């Protein structure tokens, strides 16, 4: 099977359309930022409280909001989570905005207040019983040992520890941390009627479980923000240097410009779809930087090769040829990678949602910019300086290219 074999598209001739598309996309991004009041930082970067809760039966978001408002938490952000595997249904992420000058103690209090509000509104606690869905292995083991349902006598501590561990592993792994009926525990090896009765007697089933809770102080947020910016800038600079070393600086500059373009547009859509910038999203952005750079390098690599083969052709023609020759690779790789990150987006769960969104959008934009923008920038620069600028400086690093050439030739002969 072959696609895009022997294509002959005049990419460089369409540069002005590409520039128009890019300008449009950048405008949309700018508008998204403007209308959302800038990038939305997650708690990693601004500090705050996030509690991630799973309900036995999902209450309406309005109900949750009302419950929180009663505790003076009306300004919290509530997001429902979703997932194709069905693992993340019935889940919400509740965020507390950081108030000015808040310290960690206040955030801690916020977390407690959220839990208290949820407990008050959705839980139906039974007197003198503990919440099984919040119980620790120690508590369960102690409860079992107290009733001794297996009749093991006083020396049974170890056995009950194991049983408690098994029961809670079942709760966490098979039931995502939320048991809705004690009967479900029958599937656990070693649980009999007496053990179930003992648990029922001392525990009730809470209607929600806390999946995770995060508290980030404002100063940490500031630090992380700084580090994220530094990491991104250093990574870009590092790539610029590498490409300048491997090619010429104008290639490096063009590649970096294309990547910056990709990052800006991706962040625009990211903001448009109301995602929040977190540490993992920064990781995704850097991956995108690497990816988009790859696409560009593959084309540049081919341009460098063709520049030697087709000395008399105009540069635009060489660039076109190079893009067309690598087009099937570009489409295939990008398509496959796109599928992979799409799967991650759909099945990877709430925690990785922002991460995979960046890659889904980024791979599309990155592929587009590699094909439509990057080479055009190099050609534009060369035309402006006169073509000699490019071949001249290619001759400026002739030893390097010649060595590469010879190496290739010998490799070919092997």
């Amino acid at each position, binding site marked *: 099977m072959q696609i895009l074999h022997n294509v002959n598209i005049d990419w460089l001739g369409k540069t002005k359309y590409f520039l128009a598309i890019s300008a449009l996309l950048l405008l949309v991004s700018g508008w998204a930022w403007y209308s959302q009041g800038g990038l939305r930082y997650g708690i990693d970067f601004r500090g705050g409280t996030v509690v991630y809760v799973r309900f036995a039966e999902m209450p309406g978001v309005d109900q949750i909001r009302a419950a929180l408002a009663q505790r003076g938490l009306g300004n919290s952000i509530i997001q429902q989570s979703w997932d194709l595997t069905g693992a993340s249904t019935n889940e919400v992420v509740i965020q507390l905005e950081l108030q000015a000058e808040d310290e960690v103690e206040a955030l801690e209090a916020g977390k407690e207040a959220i839990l208290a509000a949820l407990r008050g509104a959705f839980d139906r606690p039974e007197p003198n019983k503990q919440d099984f869905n919040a119980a620790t292995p120690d508590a369960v083991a102690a409860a079992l040992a107290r009733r001794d349902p297996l009749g093991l006598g006083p020396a049974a501590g170890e056995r009950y520890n194991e049983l408690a561990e098994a029961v809670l592993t079942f709760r966490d792994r098979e039931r995502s941390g939320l048991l809705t009926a004690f009967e479900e525990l029958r599937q656990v090896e070693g649980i009999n009627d007496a053990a179930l009765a003992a648990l029922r007697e001392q525990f009730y089933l809470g209607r929600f*479980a806390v999946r995770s809770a995060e508290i980030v102080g404002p100063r940490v947020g500031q630090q992380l923000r700084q*580090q994220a910016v530094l990491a991104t800038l250093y*990574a870009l600079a590092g790539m610029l240097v590498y490409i300048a070393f491997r090619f010429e600086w104008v290639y490096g500059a063009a590649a970096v410009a294309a990547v910056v373009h990709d990052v800006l547009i991706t962040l625009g859509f990211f903001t448009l779809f109301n995602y929040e910038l977190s540490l993992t999203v920064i990781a995704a952005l850097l991956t995108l*930087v690497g990816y988009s750079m790859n696409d560009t390098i593959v084309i540049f690599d081919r341009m460098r090769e063709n520049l030697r083969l087709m000395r008399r052709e105009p540069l635009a023609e060489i660039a076109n040829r190079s893009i067309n020759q690598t087009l099937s690779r570009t489409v*295939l*790789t990008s398509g496959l990678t796109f599928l992979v990150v799409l799967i991650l987006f759909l099945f990877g769960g709430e925690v990785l949602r922002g991460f995979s969104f960046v890659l889904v959008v980024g791979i599309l934009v990155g592929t587009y910019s590699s094909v439509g923008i990057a080479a055009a920038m190099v050609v534009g620069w060369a035309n402006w300086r006169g073509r000699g600028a490019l071949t001249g400086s290619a001759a400026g690093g002739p030893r390097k290219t010649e060595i590469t050439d010879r190496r290739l030739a010998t490799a*070919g002969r092997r």
Partner: protein
Amino acid sequence: MSTTVKTRVFLILALTLLSLFGLFGLPKFPPTSWQDLRENFENRIKLGLDLRGGTHMVLQVQVEEAVHLECDRTVDRLTDLLRDPAHNIPFEEVRKLDSTHILIRNVPADQAGTLRSLVSDNFPGWDLGPAPGEANSYTLTMRATVAAQIRRDTMRQSIETIRRRIDALGLTEPTIAEHGRGENEILVQLPGEGDPARAKAVIQAGGQLELRLVRGGPYRTQAEALAQMGGVLPVGTELVRGRAERANPGEPQLSEVWWLLDRTPVVTGRDLRTATVGPSTRSPGRYAVHFTLSRDGAARFGPFTEANVGQRLAVVLEGRTYNAPVINSRIDDQGVIEEFSQQEAQDLALVLRAGALPASIRYLEERVVGPSLGADSIRQGFIASVLSLILVMILMLLYYKKAGINASVGLLLNLVLLLAALAYFGAVLTLPGIAGVILTIGMAVDSNVLVFERIREELRLGKAPASAVDTGFSRAFLTIIDTHVTTIVSCLFLFLFGTGPIRGFAITLTIGLLTNLVTAIYVSRTIFLWQLERAGRQAALSI
């Protein structure tokens, strides 16, 4: 098979076996069950907190407090020395300016030399200089190296103390280490601990123990204390809140009281050697904590208690007065803190034994991941990885036919190598790490596509399969190196600046890219060579 191909296949098999051994261990007899294999695998791949569940905390040690303390002590010692009949240097005041500067005001000019030698003899860590703008006044400055040393010691001691206290909880594999990100930060990771409250209670408990002389009290309120003092506290004292003593019959029980205490402690937790629980000698049924001081501490405590018999001494824990017993006689190295419930006494003894924190701490960050979220993340990550793998393999088989098998073998082998490398290096797999694995699949496919497309091009130019394969690989080689290096560069910076989960991502992706170089270039080429040999060098290539 030719020797070259044989050697290559041998090397690849050896590498694969080594990886499998790294992941699953040696097969046993009778045959290892799936259960065993699974257990081995789970033991070898270390999971990060986000997959395992647990508590992650970042604390900041207020190291400046320790420098302040040293400065306070120096002010006291200096004042004593100046007043000491042996020197008898007149002065107006000795005052702490900030944590490293002390002002000495109005020392007569003819005493300057004596002061200078007094300082250089007794305070080697300090420099004496004229105070700016004031005649006959001097500033005593703590040397920067000394202050830095105090900060470093405080930090080290805090880490040690926290580690000992956490260890006493008996959790599995806790991490307590200096956190490179900010200043004076400590990272505490407690895998499997879903409730940070207990750990925090232990870390926080009795951050600092101090024994300080009581100058007045108890007062019922702060206002009452101030009123009795005429609105101004005596120099070098402060009001400290404390728990009330048990009321005499007929009097109302107060919830808290205030004591007027010396600002500088006589001894601190640092001077403590041991602490044990025993029954109280004063009230039956209650408990007491017996403590022993270090030699250095005892040398100070002995004369001090002797000079202050009949006075009260406050036991201050974490800035709160526990009680204020009367000093009955000289105490050298053994003392008792009275009247606790059994639980209180045990906790206090534990905290004292583990050593007090040399400075207070603040929490900067606290993340708790429940075990169920970790388990779900693993499941989701697994589903996403397997789905991508299968989908990619199907598409490669459709598009490249037999060469697709080649790519699929490479992909699978790449995953095995990647996981084995993680196990061998003891790297931690995090949720972003799983995403890194999935992205590795994408990158690996890219290398294959680059090579295969090149081979196709060469074939189209009419080259023989063998030489098309050769040229394809060698032409694509540099491109593959370039694309890999750029991604590794970004991973490097992620690793340098990132924390926890992000580092996991950078590590897995980097390792994945490196192993991919092996599989996409060496392994894939070997398979081609072997195919070409079997089919004869001129036979058509299925690609």
